[in-house]
């Protein structure tokens, strides 16, 4: 085992890194109560007066709703395409197999501005109006790989014998998928889907190029930073979103803890 000194040192390191990670977030939450609408240190005073206007802000509500819609649809597309791709790559050997992983990782490995610019001129060429559809397509490109990686990592751990056993017992392909395969990958789908949702929800660069006269939440936030007049409202919104998402993230984490059957050690 690691020495006691090492354990303590690493424990301290973890604490420091967590403090580093959460200091700006603590500031965001604190400044949701800022008495002034201009941010400066130290905080001039505390108030809850921004909560009402922020929650009732029509533009913010529309932006939040659009972001949620886009994230849900993009995640669903990512789940479908990512699962299909991972099954295809995992089950079959063929020429160009590695190329698929490469292809899927490109949107996340290449700068978002390239995806954004490319899709923008592509949609313009095909005379597609900028709308929820174009936003979703943009997000789906980089969300697929997140699901794909999670699922294929899980598939590699699942013994192929399970599928064969199922078929030996008389189940057809669909039943095998539904009763045997899907449960084994379901937690991979959940963690992949959750990360894909987070990526889509917070995305700003690609969305700047693929959205029309509509704002997703990050674009609304960017506009507020430009304007500088209602910043505490941004802090309120982020604070509330964090408070709300702790629960699903924690729940998802509990659901995705490995069960002993699938460990391949």
């Amino acid at each position, binding site marked *: 085992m690691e020495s006691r000194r090492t354990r303590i040192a690493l424990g301290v390191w973890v604490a420091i890194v967590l403090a580093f990670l959460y200091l700006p977030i603590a500031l965001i939450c604190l400044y949701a109560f800022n008495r*002034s*609408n*201009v*941010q*400066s*240190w130290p905080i001039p005073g505390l108030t809850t007066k921004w909560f009402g206007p922020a929650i009732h802000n*029509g*533009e913010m509500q529309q932006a939040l709703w659009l972001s949620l*819609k886009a994230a*849900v*649809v993009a995640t*669903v597309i990512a*789940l479908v395409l990512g699962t299909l791709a991972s099954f295809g790559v995992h089950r079959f050997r063929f020429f160009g197999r590695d190329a698929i992983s490469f292809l899927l990782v490109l949107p996340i490995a290449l700068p978002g501005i390239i995806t954004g610019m490319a899709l*923008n001129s592509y*949609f*313009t060429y095909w*005379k597609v*109006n*900028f*709308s*929820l*559809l174009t936003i979703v397509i943009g997000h789906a490109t980089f969300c697929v790989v997140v699901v794909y990686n999670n699922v294929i990592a899980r598939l590699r751990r699942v013994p192929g014998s399970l599928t064969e056993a199922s078929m030996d017992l008389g189940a057809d392909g669909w039943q095998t998928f*539904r009763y045997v395969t*899907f*449960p084994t990958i*379901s937690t991979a789908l959940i963690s992949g889907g959750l990360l894909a949702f987070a990526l889509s929800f917070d995305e700003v660069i690609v969305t700047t190029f693929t959205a*029309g*006269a*509509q*704002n997703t939440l990050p674009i609304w936030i960017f*506009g*507020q*930073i*430009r*304007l*500088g*007049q209602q*910043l505490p409202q941004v802090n309120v919104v982020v604070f509330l979103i964090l408070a709300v998402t702790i629960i699903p993230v924690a729940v998802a984490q509990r659901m995705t803890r490995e069960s002993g059957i699938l460990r391949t050690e």
Partner: protein
Amino acid sequence: MTKRMWALIAMLAVAAAFPAAGASRQSGGTLKMVAWEGYLEPLWVKPFEQQSGCTIQAKYAGSSDEMVTLMRSGGGNQYDMVSASGDASLRLIYGKDVQPVDVSKIPNFKQLNPAFRSPPNNTVGGKHYGVSLQWGPNILLYNTTKVKPAPTSWSSIYSPKYKGKITVPDNPIQIADAALYLMKTKASLGIKDPYELNSTQFNAAIALLKQQKPLIKRYWPSGGQEVNDFKNGNVWLGAAWPYQLSLLRAAKAPVKDVIPREGATGWLDTWMVSAHTKNLDCAYKWLNYISSAKAQAQQATNYGETPVNAKACPIMNKLSPGSCAVYHANAPLAYFKQIHFWKTPIADCGNGKKDCMDYTKWQQAWTQLKG
């Protein structure tokens, strides 16, 4: 597991249903507008939507350049109107991205201050390509506790006294500010108009800006960001809009503004109508509405700029006492004349010669300057 599947299908159904919902519930059309942040606040947009039956969808942009690009995107079919500043409006006119406006169809046009009815940045060849909206000077803003004595000349942002505490906008049109300074301090260059610069004059302006660069703390990308910089001690003086001044005052920051003795550049925004819009009816309704004294006063006091409607003053003072004087809404003509409003630099120098630097060269030079 079946529950999970059903949950997934339910989410899919909900998500798929909603793009269809939310389609035009109003009887009028939808105006997709490209605007500066803060120009389409619910305070004056909601009453318009209720009165006219038209719906407004806003696309905010942070710079005139971006507005031009947006108006041209999708073959010009994406947006119906744009609140273009003077450095963009001519580009839009010459690029045939906006259409002429028949001002006889806009009753409130008559209330506009004569100086802003046909300014050169939106009226070409006698045709109006939009209706003037609001304007403001590019002021010299300074921190009264750190900058002493109070500056009276633009030289203060070109001298090393406050090195590392100066800020100017991140905008190629800023070259005109340098040209304006040279116009008054280096007459030998023969600059008559800070937007019409031949290569010698242009290079001199760039040289001045290069000299200034080590003094610059930041080229501010937006009004809100400059407010942050003045409030938090990052900068002590620089070029700004009255918008920043009003926000800083409200936040009790010790700042003051001045139009230095060399004069100042300024901006005049115009609401323009896309050449490809399908909602001309709503567009004219908006042009008339936003030119009314009340809407003008609301926007002016809300944002911190000067209205073009001569009758807006009393309403401004009701909304925010003293604001009419603060924003020089009723200033004499002489006040406007000292301001060199933004216009797009083009190769045609206006004196028969065609060797002035066009805007593309300004943009390239600005990128090189930042480095």
